């Protein structure tokens, strides 16, 4: 097919930008390990409260400045809903839900994950900046959706 010269220039510029974008995502994903949650671990949504570790949700220190946070998102609350860690902590989240789909976002950070019934979502984030962060449910889950909140304090 015939392409006029200006169109060729435009397409080459456009396609190069595209490859630059993709290269950047690729470097961040493969080189720096920056991937969104991607585990395929399953759990029976009807038995969340009886399945370890979700029978006992909470924050557990597992190393120097390293924590594991087991959390359930359910209508219309997070448990635990108040978490405090020191600045510089690496936190491994493991989240699930016994009922409907929820979103768990710590506003102002990159922690933004979905809780899907039947699945466990894992995500790791290091909190460098001290502050009082708001946790919101960002996937519609019912009448109390906008009251479903928590606090994440980095000291």
């Amino acid at each position: 097919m015939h392409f006029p010269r200006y169109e060729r220039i435009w397409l080459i510029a456009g396609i190069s930008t595209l490859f630059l974008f993709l290269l950047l995502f690729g470097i961040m994903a493969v080189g720096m390990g920056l991937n969104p949650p991607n585990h395929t671990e399953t759990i029976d949504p009807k038995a969340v409260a009886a399945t370890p570790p979700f029978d006992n949700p909470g924050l557990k220190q597992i190393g120097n400045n390293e924590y594991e946070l087991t959390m359930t998102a359910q209508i219309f609350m997070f448990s635990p809903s108040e978490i405090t860690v020191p600045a510089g902590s690496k936190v491994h989240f493991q989240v699930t839900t016994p009922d409907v789909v929820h979103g768990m976002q710590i506003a102002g950070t990159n922690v933004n994950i979905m809780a899907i019934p039947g699945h466990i979502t894992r995500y790791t984030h290091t909190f460098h900046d001290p502050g009082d962060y708001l946790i919101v449910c960002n996937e519609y889950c019912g009448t109390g959706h906008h009251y479903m909140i928590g606090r994440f304090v980095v000291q």
Partner: protein
Amino acid sequence: MTDNAIKEEKGFSFTRKDSSLILAFLGVSFVALLLGAVAGLLQVLERGGYISLQPQWYYLLLTLHGVALALIFTTYFIIGFLYSGVIKTLGGKMHDADRRTGWIGFWMMTIGIILALFAIANQSSSVLYTFYAPMKASPWFYVGLALVVVGSWVGGTPIFSSYAKWRKANKGQPSPLFAFMAVATFVLWVIATLGVAIEVVFQLIPWSFGWVSDIDVSLSRTLFWYFGHPLVYFWLLPAYIYWYVNIPAVVKGRLFSDSLPRLTFILFILYSIPVGFHHQLMEPGITSFWKFLQVILTMLVVVPSLMTVFAILATFEIAGRMQGAKGRFGWVKKLPWNDVRFLVPFFSMVMFIPAGAGGVISASYQLDQVVHNTLFITGHFHMTLATTVVLTFFGISYWLIPLLTGRTLTRFANNLGIVQGVVWLLGIFLMSVPMHIVGVLGAPRRSAFSTYAGHPVVQEWKPYLLSAGVGGTLLFIGILLYLWVVLYLMFFSPKAEKPMPYPIGRVDPKYQKPPLFLERWPVWIGLTFALILIAYLWPVLQMIQHAPPGSPPIRTW
């Protein structure tokens, strides 16, 4: 297409039977627009804290807003518009059997919509237009939506069959561009809706009636988003048809090329379906490799989009120069800036630039972590769907309705239409831009007004949400203005003395004919399915084999 040019000077009129069918589709789309607009206004005022609604009403309105605008308004308007262009370019009237099929599709869809709206109104189905399981709506909500989808397939049949008849009668000839694009749009729609049809028919309906007890949530979401992204291209492609085919005639120019737009549409079919995972980046159950692969396919859509930008601007320049423009940018002055058929869609093209950039951000593998499920997304699709697509549709209706009713587009309607476009731009600026910003600050989408227990970060969000309330009110006024013009053009504007032209751009005769391989649909559809299999087969098999225990239905409103 030279014979069209001769007809064009004579003007064009639809047969009574054809115009009734098209007006029926457009009529339902306008009713849906009004319903959705009222719901939208109440929502944006509640979200800003201007009014206070009971939460169950807020989420009911949110469901109504999405279903009425994203599913009903668009689908009906698109079918009406595509019928009009197919009739115009493929012989002037629809075959009787095709018209009957069109009416069957119309009634199937309309019965479906009545069922779905009834289920929403009785408070049983506040599940939003994405109806994520395991929130369970009334089974009639799902049955209604299934009827809409199947009805739209039936409604698309006349497009395919008119095209097939024309090809048979004109062997070896490239089909008229409008008809080609209408076929491409519906091919995309049918392939895309297969996903949601499977979800609704095989998962949601049996489960909501209680015939099976549990549902696989991950699989249902995957099937939904397999459809949910191409859906936005189903809205966009008819706007592109107007830009590529009709606008060149409105600006008194020529088509830049007859082959390039065909290639663009084929690329849209290929690249827009196997990409749904980019809506599911933040959830478990799909491994990184497959998410990344689909992000690559998503980003490839940049190519046909940039081709469109080039072609449209080239069309404008050609038009200006044909009318004697001098100098590098002299052609800009020659464009019909006071013609609503051009100006309002031109606004929509301009808005597509920030809208597209927002799309690249939300689909980006890592950046999505900042904006996923925040108001950024809402701001983004109010720039794409609710501005780019909708303003183009408004521009189309300003000439298509008088053509269908045998009336004239008066100076009054033209100017009111322009005012409407400006009000819309202002409304979107005050609503969508703040939504983008506050989304980055972390404000969630799909939430009623909340003080979040007085958390300090919410104070930061407040001014943006207040601005969104003002913008949303302007958008509501914009819709009232639009509906006023529509009613005027349907019933009150003066009868036309002679038929007005249906704008179809002509190709410069010096260009070669479009290559026929672009019309070998089995090849393109086959390639699309191959890409879909590559992107979906393995992860979906994994999902099925490695499925968690299912979820029972839950009602949380």
